[in-house]
């Protein structure tokens, strides 16, 4: 167990190193972040300006900070699902099974390493974007909370992607599964707007899902910083990290049994 964790830490460091070495890709992602924030801030500014009778009242300052946080998390996510899909479909998985290190843990740790680098780079981009556009950011004391929730949020997101990737044992191509997971992130995670703006019944459902743990809790912390909400958010995120890790493990074991029984997918 200890050796596995040390190997995972090394994989995490390798993942971080790879992400930093591919700085052009990282820069492209930061550019995309700026572009999407330009579009989404324009959207929310327009909604805030319009104030149509009967429309939901937006929080003071609009929803730009919320969207800034949710996009920060979304764009930091790794493509771990594609790695699983490629390895499972191409037979690239089998050589890993001969090695003494646990493929699933190593892959996830390596992806998390890259994710943390992207999280940092996009975090700096977010602050720079706020400064350049002259928008007011969250209070300085909120940043440590956001950092912790951001790291937990990308871990939840990465595990959701991993679940999609592991479905390749059965579906071979995971695009449809991914599309559904991504849209659930949009809808139940509240990518564009807090789930508190939804009808009450939908909000209650959404809050209890891993998608809210992935996006909503960190986003709402940027909008309405609060210590109590931070603890609640961290608890939801920790719960979903445990549950999704167990689900990944179960899928891995079942998928591996299928590969060993049938000789491939």
């Amino acid at each position: 167990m200890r050796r596995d964790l040390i190997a995972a830490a090394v994989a995490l460091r390798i993942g971080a190193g790879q992400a930093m070495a591919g700085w052009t890709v990282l820069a492209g992602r930061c550019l995309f972040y700026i572009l999407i924030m330009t579009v989404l801030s324009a959207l929310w500014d327009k909604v805030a300006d319009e104030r149509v009778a009967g429309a939901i009242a937006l929080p003071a300052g609009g929803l730009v900070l919320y969207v800034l946080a949710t996009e920060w998390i979304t764009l930091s996510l790794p493509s771990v699902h594609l790695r699983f899909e490629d390895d499972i479909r191409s037979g690239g998985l089998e050589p890993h099974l001969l090695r003494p290190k646990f493929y699933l843990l190593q892959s996830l740790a390596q992806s998390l390493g890259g994710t943390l680098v992207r999280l940092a780079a996009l975090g700096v981009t977010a602050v720079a974007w706020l400064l350049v556009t002259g928008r007011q950011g969250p209070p300085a004391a909120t940043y440590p909370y956001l950092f912790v929730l951001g790291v937990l949020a990308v871990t939840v997101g990465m595990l959701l992607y991993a679940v999609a990737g592991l479905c390749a044992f059965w579906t071979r191509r995971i695009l449809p599964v991914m599309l559904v997971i991504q849209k659930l992130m949009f809808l139940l995670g509240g990518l564009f707007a807090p789930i508190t703006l939804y009808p009450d019944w939908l909000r209650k459902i959404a809050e209890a899902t891993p998608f809210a743990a992935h996006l909503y809790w960190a986003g709402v912390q940027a909008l309405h910083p609060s210590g109590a909400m931070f603890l609640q958010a961290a608890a939801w995120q920790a719960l979903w990290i445990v549950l999704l890790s167990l689900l990944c493990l179960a899928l891995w074991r079942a998928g591996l049994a299928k590969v060993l029984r049938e000789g491939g997918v």
Partner: protein
Amino acid sequence: MIGSLRLYAAQSAAAIRTSFSDRGNFAIQVGGMIVNDIFFLTLWVLFFAGFRSIGGWRLQDMALLFGLTMSVVGISGVFFGGYRDLAATLLRGELDALLTQPKALIPRLLARESIATAWGDLAGAIFVLGVFAKLEWADLPALLLAIAAGTTVYVCASISFASLAFWAAGARSFARELTDFMLLFSSYPGSIYRGAVKTIAFTILPAGFVVLAPMGMVRHPSGQALAVVVFGAVVYTAIAVGLFHLGVARYRRGASPSI
């Protein structure tokens, strides 16, 4: 010309049949895309239920935009699916075999692949346009023209982005990202774009000509609206053809990068 069209039709039909061949996988991909589109539509329905309007745009306008975008992406994916990874095709040197043959290059590259998920977009587009966009039968000619023009601009812009691969090896992911940026711009109400962002939406990432101008033509048909839509399609076709053949000339000299 007719020979080229026949060849394109035959190659495209073969690509479509290939995409059908694994039926289970095809059904999963199409179903997944339909579910994806339903979620996206639900998101906008919830949005407009809460906020009513964005700069004068209402749910039916958003549905028309969404339906047009899905139609454009669906038709492009089914019949011109090679556009999606064209830069990689060029960088892998797959042009070599085609250069020895007398037929036109661009149609053959586009017809190499048919993307299964695009059928899901097409099905979704018909549903959204039919149920939510509040269109009349009289709007059908303008709608078809809008889809044709939008598809032309979308595919031609994608060819232009992919042609960067004749000059830079890193163009593979960059070209796909530019295409995705164009789609991103095409997925939001035109009323939110102002100043420099609006200029980008009508030039480098021509969402304006892919969906916004065609949509204006469907809602408010006029000679001027038609001229703008046709102008966009002609200009982006000329740019794509020009840039691609400039790149091919460079490729023939052996000056293009490869992977």
